[in-house]
């Protein structure tokens, strides 16, 4: 009896081994800023990719082959990102690359990707990555321009035509400032004050005092923590009642914690549906994707999901869909197939790619969210 058992186990081992040996895994590269200043982006992205790798392989892989994600940490350093992409292309011979996490690092590796002719799906947001579209470069994070447009549309809806903008003097803030100044005239918004602050500044009362002296009907702030939290505090401190809009860059609970719930009360911002999942109607096409992502991620890692991990989720889904459609792992065939991915529901929205559109998302990716009693409230 014992022997039969052993033989049985042996056969099982052989069989399970056979499945793994039968097909060479599809190797996909990933570069994320798991450590360094942008670790708040890279860490959830890496976790998400690792989680999806298990999921995909458990359900039979892609084209009958398992997938293997080779993840490198660029430490939020452009030089390290370039080294990593070199290794992925030349040594690991991957069929496609996901990431990097930041716009700067993405722009830094584009020449290598174009030279290596393998598709890249970036998790960063800068408009420059996909406009004008380059054959092998895609991204799944909506451009900041779309977020700016969402805010301005909300301003118009509430008849707030005179706006003061206050932006960080870093890449993210400067990009938002350019976008807002570009679309303001088209959307009938007048920018009556244009203030800037240093990303490391600790007091913005001077800028806000200046804004208080203008006839601005709303304030739009563009930056990532901690600057916007300081501005939220300073605004209450100065007794400014003008509505305050924030960029999607602060759409995390950390912002509310830093600003203090009483200072964040009433602030409006565009955000992904992911952060207001319980309030998304059950019949919304994204509801299922978001709910299952949150449930699985939080169950596995015992930490709250972030919309950034959502970018990695969407990138993997788009890529897997493209490989399936292409029925091939040839990088050029995958590239062509990404351009034809249509109607794919991701955590951020419905992705529709085309030869001209390499981001695949529209303004619909964002919902306006209001901070009420330290929590998000989705606006209709």
């Amino acid at each position: 009896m014992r022997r039969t058992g052993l033989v049985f186990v042996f056969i099982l081992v052989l069989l399970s081994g056979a499945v793994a040996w039968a097909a060479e895994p599809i190797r996909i590269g990933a570069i994320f800023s798991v450590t360094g200043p942008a670790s708040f982006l890279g860490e959830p992205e890496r976790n998400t990719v690792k989680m999806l790798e298990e999921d995909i392989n458990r359900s039979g892989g892609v084209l009958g082959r398992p997938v293997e994600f080779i993840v490198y940490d660029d430490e939020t350093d452009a030089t390290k990102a370039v080294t990593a992409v070199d290794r992925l292309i030349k040594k690991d011979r991957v069929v496609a690359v996901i990431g990097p996490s930041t716009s700067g690092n993405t722009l830094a590796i584009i020449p290598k990707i174009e030279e290596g002719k393998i598709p890249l799906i970036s998790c960063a947001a800068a408009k420059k990555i996909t406009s004008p579209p380059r054959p092998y470069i895609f991204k799944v994070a909506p451009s900041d321009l779309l977020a700016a447009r969402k805010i301005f549309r909300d301003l118009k809806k509430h008849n707030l035509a005179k706006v003061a903008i206050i932006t960080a003097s870093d890449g993210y803030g400067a990009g938002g400032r350019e976008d807002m100044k570009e679309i303001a005239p088209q959307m009938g918004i007048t920018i009556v004050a244009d203030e800037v602050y240093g990303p490391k500044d600790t007091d913005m009362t001077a800028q806000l005092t200046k804004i208080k002296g203008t006839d601005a009907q709303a304030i739009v702030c563009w930056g990532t923590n901690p600057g916007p939290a300081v501005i939220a505090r300073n605004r209450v401190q100065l007794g400014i009642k003008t509505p305050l809009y924030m960029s999607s860059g602060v759409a995390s609970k950390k912002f509310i914690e830093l600003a203090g719930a009483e200072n964040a009360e009433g602030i409006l911002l565009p955000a992904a549906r992911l952060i207001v999942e319980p309030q998304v109607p059950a019949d919304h096409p994204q509801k299922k994707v978001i709910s299952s992502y949150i449930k699985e991620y939080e169950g596995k890692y015992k930490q709250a999901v972030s919309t950034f991990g959502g970018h990695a989720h969407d990138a993997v889904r788009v890529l897997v869909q493209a490989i399936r459609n292409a029925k091939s792992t040839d990088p050029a065939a995958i590239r062509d197939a990404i351009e034809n991915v249509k109607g794919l529901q991701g955590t951020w929205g419905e992705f529709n790619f085309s030869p001209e559109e390499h981001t695949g998302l529209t303004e619909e990716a964002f919902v306006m969210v209001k901070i009420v009693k330290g929590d998000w409230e989705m606006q209709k």
Partner: protein
Amino acid sequence: MTAASALLQYVISGATVGSTYGLAALGFTVIYNTTEIINFAQGEFVMLGGMLAVFALRWGGVPLPLAVPLAVLIVTAVGVLVNRLTIRPVQGRSPLTMIIITIGVSILLRGGAMLIFGKDTFSLPAFSQGGPIDLGGATLLPQSLWVFGITLLTVLGMKFFFDRTLTGKAMLACACDRKAASLMGIHVDSMVTLSFAFSALVGALGGVILAPITLTAYDVGILLGVKGFAACILGGLGNPFGAVVGGILLGILESLGAGLVSSGYKDAVAFIIMLALLFWRPSGLFGSARAERV
């Protein structure tokens, strides 16, 4: 909002932040006076003050009124350790060597804080409850009153210590002539240790009183150190009173620069005015040409 109340607001905001620059500058001055070293780890003392208070409150569950003095005390001990472990072993070398050592210490402290506390930004609750106080159209946070009060008390305390106590006078003697002081029976080593303790203490105080207003993170020390040093030069290196006034002035200049000129060039405006002042008075506002210290 009228122009006058806007102006008042710029001054209040500037003076609040400037008080921390001033306390950092005071720390620079105390060490410089006894050792001729510019301690570039001064900014990290400021950072540690705020961060330790946050973590005593969060991890240790220590109530705020205890967390604040506890943080200041720990940083004071760190200051003493920095002297014992890094400055004393190389005693007698040129001040330049020691200044470079302090730069190393600052990198070490910053890196250590990053590993222990993480890279996030944190907030500390205000010392007292209550909303902003209206002051002729401008507003003043209750925490700002704490900042002004503690800064003033620190300056007065320092003045009393150096003018009226024997230890204070002994420290001054070390500044005047180290060898002569030693011959007079003053234990110079203890005075140097004391100066590091003082400078860490005032730095930590600055960090902890400002944290409720401006938030804190492991890397806020760099900027505060640079601003504190600038305040020192502005007030006249070696003059404790000048250092604090220099800090407050620098804060106000920045705030006015941001409000009246351009927020994009806030720091530039402040530093240009500072450079102009120094061309006019190379030894700083309160420094005498004779380079007499203290």
